């Protein structure tokens, strides 16, 4: 309640100031980008006061309408707050010092009645009454007024159904471009890996075998050396090819599906993993691959950084949304900005139009929650 009273008063005084600025800056606000930015700042501020998330971005025309509403509603409410708080200050500070003022310029109480303070009785009794009455108003009424203004602000700036749709299309277009980019980049990486690695080694093997054939008749020692080299190169090619295949689509996932692959993954982890796996039904291969990747990456992070003693892994499906939760009891402090692991998870999940939430306060625990559509 105390916080609410203070934050309400501060909000209203700020509103008065910005309403005056808005009124003076109206010509500048005719430019849509300026109006949008200014409106957006206020919308965040109103959202913080009301404790609701402010989503979507206001359009230019809507921002201009808001500017007018802000002046019309914000100025009187802000002024009322200033008068209320100012008069509390007068009663608390100026009234007890009435004797120090010249007789014709004494401080007055009860603003509209203008009662001059000319003796101690008026100063103490009148001052106390004014503080109590206006204090009560500041305590109960100002927060209500602040919230009223914030609601008006959010209501005027709330995006219409059409704007919401436009924004959704924007997000989908961006994520789709991301998918196509990611897909292209992935193909390039695979091509490069096969070209620089496996293909180059096959060429080398052919060369070594060809030279061995040439030497067959007259130099058996060279043949032996070349064959041994070709053999080694072939073994390296196999190891490398296996690594590339693992990055394209983990074979265990192809063999056993997501649940079998996750069981195998958990068994490999050096930190004990407790799996809670609901019946997921049939999932698209892309979703399975991303889910596997996300969990593998999360378990690697736990092993490397968290100093955890156990990990809980929960996967379930509600209608067409797959939810994954990886929680560990480690030291926390995981940060999306540091390290590529979490960034990689976000990128892959975003490509499927999913969402990632990372909660990792210093000292732990760390919880990674991922939701992906899986229709």
């Amino acid at each position, binding site marked *: 309640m105390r916080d609410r009273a203070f934050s309400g008063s501060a909000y209203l005084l700020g509103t008065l100031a910005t309403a005056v600025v808005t009124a003076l800056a109206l010509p500048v606000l005719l430019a849509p980008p300026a109006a949008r930015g200014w409106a957006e700042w206020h919308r965040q501020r109103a959202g913080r006061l009301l404790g609701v998330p402010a989503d979507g971005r206001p359009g230019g025309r809507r921002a201009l309408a808001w500017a007018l509403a802000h002046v019309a509603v914000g100025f009187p409410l802000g002024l009322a707050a200033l008068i209320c708080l100012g008069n509390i200050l007068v009663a608390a500070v100026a009234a007890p010092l009435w004797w120090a003022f010249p007789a014709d310029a004494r401080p007055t109480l009860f603003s509209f009645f203008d009662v001059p303070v000319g003796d101690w009785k008026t100063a103490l009794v009148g001052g106390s009454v004014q503080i109590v009455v206006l204090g009560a108003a500041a305590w109960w009424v100002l927060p209500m007024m602040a919230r009223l203004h914030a609601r008006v602000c959010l209501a005027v700036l709330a995006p219409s159904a059409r704007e919401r749709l436009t924004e959704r299309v924007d997000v989908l277009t961006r994520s789709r471009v991301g998918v196509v980019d990611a897909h292209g980049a992935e193909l390039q990486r695979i091509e490069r890996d096969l070209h620089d690695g496996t293909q180059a080694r096959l060429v080398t093997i052919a060369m070594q075998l060809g030279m061995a054939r040439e030497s067959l008749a007259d130099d058996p020692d060279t043949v032996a050396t070349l064959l041994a080299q070709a053999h080694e190169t072939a073994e390296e090619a196999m190891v490398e090819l296996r690594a590339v295949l693992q990055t394209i689509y983990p074979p265990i996932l192809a*063999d056993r599906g997501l649940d079998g692959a996750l069981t195998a993954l958990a*068994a*490999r982890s050096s*930190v004990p993993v407790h799996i809670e796996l609901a019946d997921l039904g049939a999932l698209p291969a892309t979703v399975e691959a991303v889910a596997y990747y996300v969990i593998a990456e999360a378990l690697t992070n736990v092993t*490397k*950084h968290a*100093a955890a003693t156990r990990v809980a892994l929960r996967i379930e499906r509600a209608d067409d949304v797959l939810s994954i939760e990886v929680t560990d009891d480690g030291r926390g*402090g995981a940060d999306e900005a540091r390290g590529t692991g979490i960034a990689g998870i976000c990128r892959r999940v975003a490509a499927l139009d999913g969402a990632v939430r990372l909660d990792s306060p210093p000292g732990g625990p760390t919880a990674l929650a991922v939701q992906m559509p899986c229709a």
Partner: protein
Amino acid sequence: MRVVIVEDNVLLSSGLELLLAAKGCEVVAVVGDGEAFLDAVAEHRPDIAIVDVRLPPSFRDEGIHAALRARREHGALPILVLSQYVEREYAGELLSDGRGGIGYLLKDRIGRVAEFVDALRRVAAGGTAMDPEVVAQLLARRADDPLDTLTSRERESLALMAQGHDNATIAERMRISDNAVHKHIGNIFAKLGLAPDDSGHRRVRAVLTYLDGTPRSAEPAPGRGNPP
């Protein structure tokens, strides 16, 4: 030694047939799927079967299921499972019936012909052949327990032991004397708290079971993990 090959890729199965013939093994049947495999075993009663993991119709892990079924139905028929990749989980399933005569190797290993045939004979004789990759996976996930007290030479002996090799082979691979191997193995069993066992199948099993179990201590060792 009479062998049944279960492999749907003709290039690989004929190569394998050629290689085995050159090494004096008799390939009595080459089949391409799990059902035909069981029929071939019933008909030919081979000494060992070489089974690929991915088989028709679904090309997933039919080979593992076929191998386990053949062992249930044909009294622990020795089986060597081959695959393009190895997974600790599959090794655990193959070992789970607790009987000897089981092998699980990467196809890469066929190229080292002498070692491959040695593994094949070992499995046919009731021993174990576990791919170094599987053993590496088992060793890698144990970050913090009695395994850390092993010296690097002891760790090396442990890995070879887990792959199914006997003392003589371990001595040869590590270029040390039989006595030294004996000492290493004594130390390993003491440090891991395992009952000293005679060589052979039971010893391999004890080591693999130990490695496959949950780590003793879940507490991270000091100095692990990155600074906050």
